[in-house]
């Protein structure tokens, strides 16, 4: 499963939240691929995903969280997608 954090450079909120989110994702599902994308390097991709506000989080190429979730929300979403619900 692929999790992408799309952020704007200099985003203090992203830097604070990413460690907790990444840990939650990796603990929830084995083999999670965690990627952090600077939106300025991938503007077209962000538009394709439907990102309108930052930071945002996509799972397997779909925008799932338009605003950063709590680690528990991300864990629940990943477990649901992995069929552990």
């Amino acid at each position, binding site marked *: 499963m692929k999790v992408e954090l799309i952020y*704007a450079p200099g985003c203090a909120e992203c830097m604070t939240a990413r460690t907790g989110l990444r840990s939650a994702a990796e603990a929830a599902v084995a083999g999670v691929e965690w990627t952090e994308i600077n939106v*300025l390097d991938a*503007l077209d991709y*962000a*538009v394709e995903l439907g990102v309108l506000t930052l930071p945002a989080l996509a799972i397997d190429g779909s925008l799932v969280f338009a605003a950063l979730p709590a680690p528990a929300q991300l864990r629940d979403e990943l477990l649901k997608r992995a069929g552990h619900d």
Partner: protein
Amino acid sequence: MLTIGKLAAAGEISPDALRYYEAEGLLAPTTRTASGYRLYGEDALRRVRFIQHAQACGFTLAEIRELLQLRQTDKACCNDVRQRAIEKRLQLAAKIRSMQSMSAALDRLIAECADGSQSVDDCPIMAALEQIDGGAEPAR
């Protein structure tokens, strides 16, 4: 001090627009005359220009108010402004993409209507627009 008429003339904007900016919390007169006329300070023209430039970049008045409020927020920095600019850029790109898709749908409809002499009832464009499930896809 500038009267509303003088500020409007300097900013190439109507007095009504200035009153609207005031109602939207973007620009307040510094004071009023004894008879109630608005008087603006020297920085008012700069603020009007700021609002106009931000509007030209696609920011709504509510978003412009947030940008102006950032100036008064001690914790805010240029990254906060940049994040808003990036988000606006994303929104504009999404809008452009959506309009390109509308434009392509219209191209398909126009191509479908090769025989322009048909009656309006038989017009494939009208038929396609009437389709409940097919959106603006041309009739097959």
